[in-house]
């Protein structure tokens, strides 16, 4: 990308750390995190519970002070500003809608605190109510609307002051699956229509993959990888990312020697592939390759470049079927195959088969 075409940076964290001091000692909730989020981007923080997602969000909003590092909003250092002086709004996991105010008054709150004239407030509230399709409920108390509707009001309330960045801390986790899917689409639409930068927190990898422009995968206060969903899925930076995003098979391998631009490795007795040798992998040590289930194909036993395997189970999932395999090495990979129209093909449980995958599907990863 050329420098000119690059969109402006909305939010940047430079070496941000957070240390919670407690009686049992210091706890490093975030360790030198650096991310740069472009204007208008849908950026997701993804990671297991306790990895520091909320802490990072709270620091951007101003509820925690970074122990080290800088936070820049549109290039301006906001680390020392109180929350009410930051042009950043949050959609809280618990929504935190004001119970003493109506839906419309909740949405108007931020604009009123900013001292906007009444006419502008009314106009914006109307526009927001329309945006989240809550016009008929404008005068209800927030205790008189459903969970999904509260979610919409929380979104409208946070969007109404047109923040430079919108922070969303697992906003969908309280909703049931169907509503959740609807709101995922709704969120994408809102982001598209408003053009506001979204920083979205989730520990649901599927949600992250389907919604984000880019994802930062976090673990134990570190950012492990930042990239587009495809990049993260196809080229995970390490084994944790590979196993956290999507389903993954880990197969052990041995080195057959360094070759031009990579390494030749042997998997089982029969398969030998050439692949990249990433930094941090010791070619003389134990090697592990990662193969996604959808990249494994079932063949005849003994076909060239296949591993011998036994089918131990087949689980039907509607759109596809998962085949549980046992290799001669004792490992248990899973293969996934889309179900075709027409009569289902039968593979007998216990059948001796062959397992193959394209050489490019096998990736060597660091721990």
């Amino acid at each position, binding site marked *: 990308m050329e420098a000119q075409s690059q969109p402006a940076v909305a939010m940047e964290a430079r070496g941000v750390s957070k240390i919670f001091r407690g009686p049992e000692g210091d706890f490093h909730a975030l360790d030198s995190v650096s991310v740069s989020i472009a204007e208008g981007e849908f950026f997701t923080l993804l990671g297991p519970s306790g990895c520091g997602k909320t802490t990072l969000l709270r620091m951007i*909003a*101003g*509820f925690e002070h970074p122990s080290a590092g800088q936070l820049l909003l549109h290039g301006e250092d906001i680390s020392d500003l*109180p*929350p*009410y*002086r930051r042009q*950043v*709004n*949050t959609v*809280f996991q*618990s929504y*935190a*809608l*004001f*119970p*003493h105010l109506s839906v419309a008054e909740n949405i108007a*709150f*931020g604009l009123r*605190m*900013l001292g906007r004239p009444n006419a502008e407030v009314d106009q914006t509230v109307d526009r927001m109510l329309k945006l989240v399709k809550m016009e008929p409920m404008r005068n209800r108390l927030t*205790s008189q609307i459903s969970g999904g509707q509260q979610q919409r009001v929380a979104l409208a*309330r*946070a969007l109404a*002051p047109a923040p430079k960045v919108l922070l969303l801390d697992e906003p969908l986790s309280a909703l049931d699956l169907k509503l959740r899917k609807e709101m995922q689409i709704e969120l994408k639409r809102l982001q598209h229509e408003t053009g506001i930068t979204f920083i979205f927190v989730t520990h649901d990898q599927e949600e992250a993959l389907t919604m984000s422009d880019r994802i930062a995968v976090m673990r134990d206060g570190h950012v492990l990888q930042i990239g587009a969903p495809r990049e993260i899925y196809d080229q995970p930076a390490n084994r944790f990312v590979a196993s956290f995003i999507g389903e993954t098979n880990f197969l052990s391998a041995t080195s057959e020697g360094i070759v031009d631009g990579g390494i030749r490795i042997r998997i089982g007795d029969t398969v030998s592939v050439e692949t990249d040798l990433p930094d941090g992998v010791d070619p003389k040590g134990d090697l592990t390759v990662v193969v996604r289930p959808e990249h494994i194909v079932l063949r005849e036993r003994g076909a060239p470049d296949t591993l011998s395997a036994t089918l131990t189970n087949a689980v039907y999932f509607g759109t596809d079927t998962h085949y549980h395999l046992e290799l001669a090495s004792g490992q248990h990979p899973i293969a996934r195959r889309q179900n075709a129209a027409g009569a289902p093909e039968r593979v007998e449980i216990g059948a001796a088969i062959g397992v193959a995958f394209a050489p490019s599907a096998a990736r060597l990863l660091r721990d």
Partner: protein
Amino acid sequence: MAEPSSTRRRSGRPFSVRHLPGFTLVAAACFVMLYAPIVTLVTYSFNGGESIALWEGFSLRWYVSAWANEAVQEATVRSLVVAVLASGIATALATMAALGTTRTGPFPGRMVIYALINQPLMVPEIVTAVALLIFFAMIKIATGYTGLAYLVLAHAAFCVPFAYLPIRARLEGMDLSYETAAADLYATPWRTFRYVTLPLMTPGIVAGAMLAFVISLDDVVITEFVKSAGQDTLPTYMLGQLRRMVTPEVNAISTALLALTVLLLTVFFALTRKRG
């Protein structure tokens, strides 16, 4: 568990004290003992005769005579003035105390602060009364002022914990996330308090004020010690009357007080009940 045979015999029946022999009887007796005197008091306030023990037909004469009695009128007004001012002061102090103990980070000595605020609940009333008597006597000598302010301040002092408890309970039940959300939506700390904390804690404040009002209205011990001559409140006036001659007029006043108290406490419970 110790007696498997008995547990087996009673299996299928959840534990309930109702199955203890005589429990229902004792409970009923307690209610009779609690309410029989009050029922008698209220009944005889409507007695047509002079006696507080002999029924001579229904009449409102004692209400009329109490209403017309200038001493009763004066004491009533004084009681109400003291109760309004004292509960007002106590509620203001209690509100600040409740904010100071729930809307701050944890600080050392918090438990000591709780104990100090609730001290009037623990210290025997007679001790507070004597202490105030002596303390105010010193001020009276120094300043020469003998007005109603002593009574108001004394009542305010012992009403603080009664106002404090419901307000603190309300604040503790109020999630901090509302205040966090307000700050996120550009509200300065003062505006957060003004537009979020205060409206949300108002039911607690009203409940606390009512409790303080009721407590002040019926105080005898401290009032008796602190009041100057001619500063009778309704309860101390009634006590003085009873020493001389008992007429159903006292019943009438008591019944009126009871009615007011029941009304205020009903509102109190309505306000402190958890909102659904």
